[in-house]
């Protein structure tokens, strides 16, 4: 409990947790702190350990090594029914033999509230998720979105310190999923409860979270705000997991305390105002997002830096077009995204074009 003092704002502290299933290591020394009232996401591909970590916070799994503190108390071995956390399950786990109101009131039953008090709180919870009047409905007649709301109401009625969400939107279709993303975010702000979301959908994590822990192979690869993750991905793997990233090889020419001079094949020499551990002669990778590259459609358009490229592919998304380009006389390819504003034609494949970019948009990517 030495930690609890400095972590006054942390509702959850995961301290060097490992989990082994036989010879398989699901979690490999994970430490993180989740602040009270924040919307925190665990993001990663399936099998990265994110669900295992969530199940440890909820109490369904226990760590092989390490501790989990909730609200300053060591909860490592406390069973789920004695934790101040509630969970929205991936399958929603709506009790099929109970109606909506009985589902929502399930956890309050133990508190032996008077009937009108119980009814009032159930109706309150249903109103919170826009299901006013759904109480008497049979639960098996609900749609996917409604089941999700019932699961939310059933958890929120317990007034948990932390609400855990295990891929809650993955069973919904795209339209409904996007609507629910916004709703969940609003709901979280309204109730002020800490939300911990597990997801494999980077877009979902970016749009909803205050902070995101990206996990690979049982480890946290990077923990940052959505903007930080997108703009300054720590590794190549994080960079390509969060959105699309163009990787371009470069060589270090000179490295000082405040500048890094690099040589990007066919793009020329650049001086970056950044400090780096790299030495002259090191091979490095720089990253540049597709939207940081601009196709210069007309002669009079110009940019800080320019190069010539050939269009090798075009994918039309309605609002955007994604071009695959190849730098002239090289085998370096990149993706460029252009907003389809008025007057911008869709460029045909094989055409030569000028592409502009700025020095600010470059990130140095560490290799994994």
């Amino acid at each position, binding site marked *: 409990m030495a930690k609890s003092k400095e972590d006054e704002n942390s509702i959850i502290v995961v301290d060097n947790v490992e989990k082994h299933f036989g010879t398989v290591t699901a979690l490999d020394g994970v430490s993180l702190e989740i602040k009270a009232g924040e919307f925190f996401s665990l993001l990663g591909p399936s099998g990265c350990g994110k669900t295992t970590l969530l199940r440890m916070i909820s109490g369904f799994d226990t760590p092989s090594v390490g501790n989990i503190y909730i609200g300053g108390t060591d909860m490592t071995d406390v069973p789920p029914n004695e934790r101040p956390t509630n969970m929205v399950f991936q399958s929603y786990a709506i009790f099929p033999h109970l109606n909506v109101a009985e589902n929502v009131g399930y956890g309050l039953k*133990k508190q032996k509230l008077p009937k009108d008090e119980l009814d009032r709180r159930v109706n309150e919870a249903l109103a919170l998720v826009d299901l006013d009047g759904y109480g008497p409905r049979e639960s098996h007649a609900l749609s996917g979105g409604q089941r999700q709301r019932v699961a939310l109401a059933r958890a929120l009625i317990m007034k948990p310190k932390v609400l855990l969400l295990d891929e809650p939107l993955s069973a919904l279709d795209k339209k409904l999923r996007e609507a629910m993303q916004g709703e969940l975010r609003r709901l979280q702000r309204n109730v002020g409860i800490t939300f911990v979301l597990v997801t494999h959908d980077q877009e979902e994590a970016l749009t909803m979270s205050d902070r995101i822990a990206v996990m690979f192979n049982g480890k946290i690869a990077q923990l940052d705000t959505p903007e930080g993750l997108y703009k300054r991905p720590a590794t190549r793997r994080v960079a390509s997991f969060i959105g699309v990233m163009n990787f371009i090889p470069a060589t270090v020419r000179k490295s000082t305390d405040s500048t890094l001079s690099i040589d990007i094949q066919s793009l020329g020499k650049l001086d970056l105002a950044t400090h780096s551990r790299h030495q002259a002669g090191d091979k490095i990778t720089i990253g540049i997002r597709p939207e940081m590259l601009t196709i210069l459609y007309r002669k009079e358009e110009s940019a800080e830096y320019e190069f010539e490229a050939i269009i090798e592919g075009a994918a039309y998304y309605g609002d955007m077009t994604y071009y695959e380009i190849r730098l002239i006389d090289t085998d370096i390819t990149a993706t460029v995204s252009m907003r389809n504003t008025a007057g911008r034609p869709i460029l045909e494949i094989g055409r030569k074009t000028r592409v502009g970019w700025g020095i600010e948009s470059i990130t140095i990517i560490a290799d994994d």
Partner: protein
Amino acid sequence: MQNKPSRSLLTYAIVYLIFLYAPVMLLPLFAFNDSAIIALPLSGFTFHWFGLLWQTKALHEALYNSLMIALITSIGSTTLGIFAARAAARYEFPGKRGIMGFIMVPLVLPEIIVGVALLVVLIQLGMSLSAWTVIIGHVLICTPFSIAILQSAFNNMDRSLEEASMDLGENRIGTFFRVILPLVTPGIISSLLISFTISLDEFIIAFFLTGTDATLPVYIWSQLRFPARLPAIMALGFLMVVLSFILLLTAEYFRRRANRITGNSTSSEESIF
């Protein structure tokens, strides 16, 4: 796609059903026939034989024995079935497949072998034959049926329902009574009804183990020596067929309901019959 069966297939199906049910159909035919001789042509309609059943005291005792044995057997085998099915559905343990396989073996063992073996063992143990020895034999043959029915009820239950209950502050015992039990209740009722029916109709094991407390099938067998009582036996047989049919249909209704409640639509169409 053409879903109509061919004419020959339909004919085959009809012949098949006649083969299955013609002997059973003879029961009501002669049960209501106003003649002491079981032979065609029929002579007239009567309830006389059913009235005769009402007056036979030995029959009433046999009926009472059978009902008690069936009741205790169904409770016993269903209880054992709940434990085994729950363990098989929820836990992994070494040798699980082998153990479950062996539990199911009595389903296919010849009953006469089971009967003789039990007789030998029970006598060696110094037990005298009674209704209780019949119950032991019946529990043995009914338990596999109970397990088969209950296992599908337990398997169909989404594990996260139990976790959700725990997550909402309920302990293990509370979770069992508030979530698991209500969801498998139809399966339990189905198991009770089916083992009850099996026990009620079973002859061979009862014949070997019954002692002086004859069950209904054993009583029927003993009456076959007296041709004059045959029509009354026909009437009794007819009643037993009707009762078994009703019990099995009720059991099937509950079994399907169990599958529907737990949200498993794929397996709801298959039947164990």
